[in-house]
């Protein structure tokens, strides 16, 4: 009987279960606690997710116990936090204490409990968004206009007492833009925004964060329209900047203009051109040739003391090719007689080469030509001015009774006749010009008289060389010389060109003249020593007589006009070839 009853109960229960299973009813699924949050570290709320209810009405019950306690409590408030939530008020909230929370789903079929959630309120703080967000456009008088954003702390946060420490973040953007402009503020509840675009509608949002915890949600958007006449930029500042930059530019231009050249030379130093030491271009421009050449001279150039000794020792007469006229810029315009210039090629010759420049410098008599012209040669002008030279030359010819013909050897671009180790090229170009002039001058001077009023230094070389030569060679010699000394003898120009003489002169050693015989009248027949070079000895040249003897025992010879005429014809043929370089 009893057994039948028990088995019947079991049978009915099983049937009931089968029936319920066939109907789809079951105990509820385990709920799941989603999260718990505390807005102000004073209260907190927990939310759960319910599972399937198993087809039956299900109740949810939240239970918890605190760390160190055994007593189990039930949720004090299911309503405040919304559905499936539990709100813990201040009374029920403790900080730094662990809560073990469980949610149970109960229905007719059974109870399902969730996994426990361990909650410490300290670490679940998430405030509300800030409240009362206001936007205002301000236009102060003496400052730039701006947007003034104000707000208040979120609800349920006690900031004043210091229990809740909060930070804020604001973001704004024009309505159409995609990127937000964010600003972070550590504590204050207002913000000023400058540099807004006029005519745009701006959207503003704000959120908050505790010192340790989660960020709040963004507040709802607040918008404000910037009017079109909103002054964006402070124009006065830009005007000031423009003026300042203009002033700076002007100063720089002025500085560059004043010191530009020196700066450029500092950066890019000019390449130094060739410069003759002591040569002053300005003097040349002024036309003061004497001063120019004087400046070029050195102190011991020419040496006067040594030369005098050399001159005193012997008399030497040079041939045309070996002779060079060495110009002397000094105005020793005393000589009026014929003054051929002979310059030593050989520095050892001991001839009055050091003094012979003074020979060149002796000027012609002034009446025939413009003395200034001769005294201050304008370089190439003299060379190219044969007429002047011609005049100079011809004058003495016409006026000279003795037929003394001055001849001058224009010195080529070689100053080796100076018995000093001077670089000849240094002086040659100028001297060449001078040669022409001085030659001209000398020619004129010679036209007059034989009387010389040379200064002491000049007399020796002058007398020794010129008179012998003049007497000897005369016009023919002159012609020869001109030919020999110039590769381009110009018929109209008796003045030899200086530029061709260098190779000729430098190559040739000095020539000496031997006294061949002495005639009855006291005429010395002389001939050049180096005749063997050229083969047949040249015809001796006869000099007429000794005009006088100078103080230094120098014979002044006067050329024999008769002998001159003879030799004139013969010699050009002979002398010309060797004269050529």
């Amino acid at each position: 009987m009893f057994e039948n009853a028990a088995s019947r109960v079991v049978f009915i229960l099983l049937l009931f279960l089968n029936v319920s299973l066939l109907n789809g009813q079951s105990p509820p699924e385990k709920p799941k606690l989603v999260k718990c949050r505390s807005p102000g570290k004073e209260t907190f709320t927990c939310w759960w997710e319910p599972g399937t209810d198993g087809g039956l009405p299900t109740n949810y019950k939240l239970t918890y116990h605190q760390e160190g306690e055994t007593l189990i409590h039930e949720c004090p408030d299911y309503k405040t936090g919304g559905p499936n939530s539990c709100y813990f008020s201040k009374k029920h909230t403790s900080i730094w204490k662990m809560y073990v929370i469980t949610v149970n789903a109960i229905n007719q079929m059974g109870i399902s409990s969730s996994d426990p959630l361990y909650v410490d309120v300290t670490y679940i703080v998430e405030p509300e968004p800030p409240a009362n967000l206001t936007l205002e456009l301000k236009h102060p008088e003496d400052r730039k206009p701006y947007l003034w954003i104000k707000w208040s702390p979120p609800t349920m946060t006690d900031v004043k007492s210091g229990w809740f420490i909060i930070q804020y973040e604001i973001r704004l953007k024009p309505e159409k833009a995609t990127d937000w402009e964010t600003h972070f503020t550590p504590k204050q509840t207002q913000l000023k925004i400058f540099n807004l675009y006029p005519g745009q509608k701006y959207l503003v949002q704000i959120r908050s964060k505790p010192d340790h915890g989660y960020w709040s949600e963004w507040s709802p958007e607040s918008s404000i329209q910037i009017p079109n006449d909103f002054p964006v930029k402070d124009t006065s500042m830009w005007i000031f900047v423009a003026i300042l930059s203009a002033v700076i530019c002007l100063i720089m231009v002025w500085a560059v203009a004043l010191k530009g050249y020196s700066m450029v030379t500092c950066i890019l130093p000019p390449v130094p051109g060739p410069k003759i030491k002591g040569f002053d271009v300005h003097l040349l421009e002024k036309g003061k040739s004497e001063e120019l050449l004087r400046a070029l001279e050195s102190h011991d150039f020419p040496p006067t003391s040594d030369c005098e000794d050399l001159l005193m020792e012997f008399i030497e007469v040079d041939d045309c090719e070996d002779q060079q006229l060495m110009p002397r810029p000094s105005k020793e315009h005393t000589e009026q007689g014929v003054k051929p210039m002979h310059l030593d090629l050989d520095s050892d010759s001991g001839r009055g080469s050091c003094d012979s420049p003074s020979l060149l410098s002796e000027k012609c008599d002034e009446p025939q030509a413009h003395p200034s012209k001769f005294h201050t040669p304008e370089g190439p002008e003299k060379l190219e001015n044969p007429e002047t030279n011609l005049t100079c030359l011809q004058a003495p010819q016409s006026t000279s009774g003795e037929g003394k013909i001055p001849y001058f050897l224009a010195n080529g671009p070689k100053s080796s006749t100076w018995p000093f180790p001077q670089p000849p090229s240094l002086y040659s170009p100028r001297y060449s010009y001078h040669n022409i002039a001085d030659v001209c001058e000398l020619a004129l001077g010679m036209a007059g008289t034989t009387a010389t009023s040379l200064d002491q230094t000049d007399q020796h070389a002058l007398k020794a060389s010129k008179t012998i030569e003049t007497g000897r060679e005369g016009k023919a010699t002159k012609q020869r010389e001109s030919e020999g000394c110039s590769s381009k003898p110009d018929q109209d120009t008796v003045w030899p060109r200086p530029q061709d003489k260098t190779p000729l002169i430098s190559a040739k050693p000095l020539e000496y003249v031997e006294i061949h015989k002495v005639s009855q009248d006291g005429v010395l027949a002389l001939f050049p020593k180096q005749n063997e070079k050229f083969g047949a000895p040249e015809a001796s040249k006869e000099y007429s007589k000794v005009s006088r003897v100078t103080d230094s025992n120098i014979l002044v010879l006067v050329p024999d006009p008769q002998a001159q005429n003879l030799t004139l014809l013969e010699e050009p043929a002979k002398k010309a070839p060797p004269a050529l370089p």
Partner: protein
Amino acid sequence: MKGSLESGSRLLLLLVVSNLLLCQGVVSTPVCPNGPGNCQVSLRDLFDRAVMVSHYIHDLSSEMFNEFDKRYAQGKGFITMALNSCHTSSLPTPEDKEQAQQTHHEVLMSLILGLLRSWNDPLYHLVTEVRGMKGAPDAILSRAIEIEEENKRLLEGMEMIFGQVIPGAKETEPYPVWSGLPSLQTKDEDARYSAFYNLLHCLRRDSSKIDTYLKLLNCRIIYNNNC
């Protein structure tokens, strides 16, 4: 011209002299409020610095705990064992805002000092033991070293604040002693990790307490409850 220059220079000299005389009469703000022989940093500056350091220590503790939890404590249920495991739980610390606001600042400050002192020893051993831990990540070790350093600094600062706020108060309050070293050195890996977990959990909590109390005191004393 010359005369005006002379008079101008005389006027300048007169101005300078008068300024010097006037300046002597100006009372300058005292640098040392407690007397010339006891020049101290102002209380405001001390509190500012203390708040910064306590904030920093709590940040480091939180990061260190999260790092450890992610690496060694997943699915192990260490949290259950961590309940009621802090050696400082004997200290009567306030548990909510009302309690804290009702606590006198002397009490609060001595509580802070007790907490700071009680953590000196555990922090030292924490560094040593984390170094010896197999595969110890640098994130945990470096933070442990930093926290130990900052804790000492904060203790010094708190002692200075205490001396200024409550002059003449005795500072020899007993503090809780930590005895968890054996469990940190146990051979059982799970037990050891559990011990580490407990220590880091308690460190995070106590650093939060110190930080909160200090910020509360700062607003109360310096800003007069008007932060």
